[in-house]
């Protein structure tokens, strides 16, 4: 891996905050349009102190978890069937490619009509935004399995569902992990977007509330929270999982 860039990284972020502070002190724009980093931090501290921040995070994460769980279980099943049954691939598969090109936000009007302004609607948007990434990666993973694995397993007596759970899923797992990672990224964007439009609790709602109160500090502070959560889950959870799988499967 070579050089450790942590000091550079810290210096970079300190630099950004310093420049930000200077610009706000020079007073090019009024405070209510361009707050200082201090004001943003203060806002963050307030919302942490009164609990609204953590309640928002918990609500968003809860919706995301359910949506992603639905996307993962549905996407894996769909992907396996597409990879193993050609007629499903030719029919359902083509629809999956089409649906994948719809941004998850575009599902919001339909979700509101179907579910009303409920958790169910937001979870629907989250799940549908993530499911196709999981499906396509699972499909690719199963298609790329060394055929000798499947032959060896069948030769040793594996049949039907045994073949799926004991060979297809573990053999395709490195691809599936990439699918989960992509799915998570789509789900995260989806849940925040839906919350803004539904305006019904969660981090997206806090963003929108900040907008309607003309509170730029709150908007920026929530955006930072969204970024940090995204980064942490990406690098800590998924990167670690991916590395572990890759080395275990001998791909690294």
């Amino acid at each position, binding site marked *: 891996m070579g050089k450790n860039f942590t000091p550079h990284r810290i210096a970079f972020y300190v630099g950004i905050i310093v420049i930000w502070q200077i610009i706000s002190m020079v007073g090019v724009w009024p405070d209510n349009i361009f707050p200082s980093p201090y004001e943003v931090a203060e806002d963050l501290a307030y919302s942490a102190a009164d609990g609204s921040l953590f309640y928002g995070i918990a609500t968003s994460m809860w919706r995301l978890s359910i949506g992603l769980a639905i996307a993962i279980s549905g996407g894996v099943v769909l992907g396996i069937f597409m990879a193993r049954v050609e007629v499903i691939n030719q029919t359902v598969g083509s629809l999956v490619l089409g649906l994948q090109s719809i941004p998850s936000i575009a599902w919001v009007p339909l979700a509101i009509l179907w579910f009303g302004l409920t958790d169910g609607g937001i979870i629907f948007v989250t799940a549908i935004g993530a499911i196709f990434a999981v499906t396509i990666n699972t499909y690719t993973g199963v298609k790329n399995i*060394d055929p000798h694995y499947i*032959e060896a*397993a069948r*030769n*040793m007596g594996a049949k039907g569902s045994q073949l799926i759970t*004991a060979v297809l899923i573990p053999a395709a797992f490195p691809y599936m992990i990439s699918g989960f990672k992509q799915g998570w990224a789509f789900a995260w964007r989806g849940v925040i977007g839906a919350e803004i439009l539904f305006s019904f609790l969660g981090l997206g709602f806090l963003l929108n509330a900040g907008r309607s109160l003309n509170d730029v500090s709150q908007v920026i502070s929530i955006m930072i929270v969204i970024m940090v959560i995204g980064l942490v889950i990406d690098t800590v959870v998924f990167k670690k999982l991916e590395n572990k799988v890759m*080395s*275990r499967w*001998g791909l690294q």
Partner: protein
Amino acid sequence: MTKLEAKNIVKHFSHESHKLTALDGINLKVEAGDFVCLVGPSGCGKSTFLRIIAGLEKPDEGQIMFDGHPVTETSPERIMVFQEGALFPWLKVQDNVEFGLKMAGIPKEERAKISNRYLDMMQLTKFANSYTYQLSTGMKQRVAIARALVMDPDVLLMDEPFASLDAQTRDLLLVEMQLIWEKTKKTILFVTHNVAEAAVLGTKIAVFSNRPSIIKKEFENNFPRPRVTEDESLLKLQQDILAELRPEVKKSRE
């Protein structure tokens, strides 16, 4: 007792819109306890023949008779050892070895008892908890052989299992393979392109012709064991096999 009989096996492949005949009527009789080595030029279809016996492919004509019944599908009675081992990288060595037992629904304790015996036989006990990426190519082949033996198959089908090993490891495994065969009394079909390997291992050596292939000649090989590759007594046999093989290899390159 005849364990296995190939009756006029024909197999075609379509290759870029023209039909290619790989096997053009293979006939072979294998007695229980035989160690049959199949040699032939590369691309002659000897691996395909093994896959047909395993039930992983269907012949276009002809039939494989196993214990007097036609082979219709793959079964743990005829276990294949693949050239690259085809071990599952997501399982530890021991779980790889126990895979077939698990599929058969054998309880954990009993699986461990059986697999430990074969891990010991293949000198893998130390590596039981390793993952396959941590093993050398030779070790992987030992695991693949253990995984096959655990199924207690009637017939072991080995598709160039030693092709990617270095010479020392191969010599070691050639000795061990003979011991395993003597100990387990399995019927073995062993595909190789290496004539010395065939002469050391086989009780019978079948030479495949170039495509479209038939079995050109069979040699009996009753030299005492254990044999090693440098045995001078095997040289004459090797020369005889090579004399049959050489023109076929030449044709395959034309």
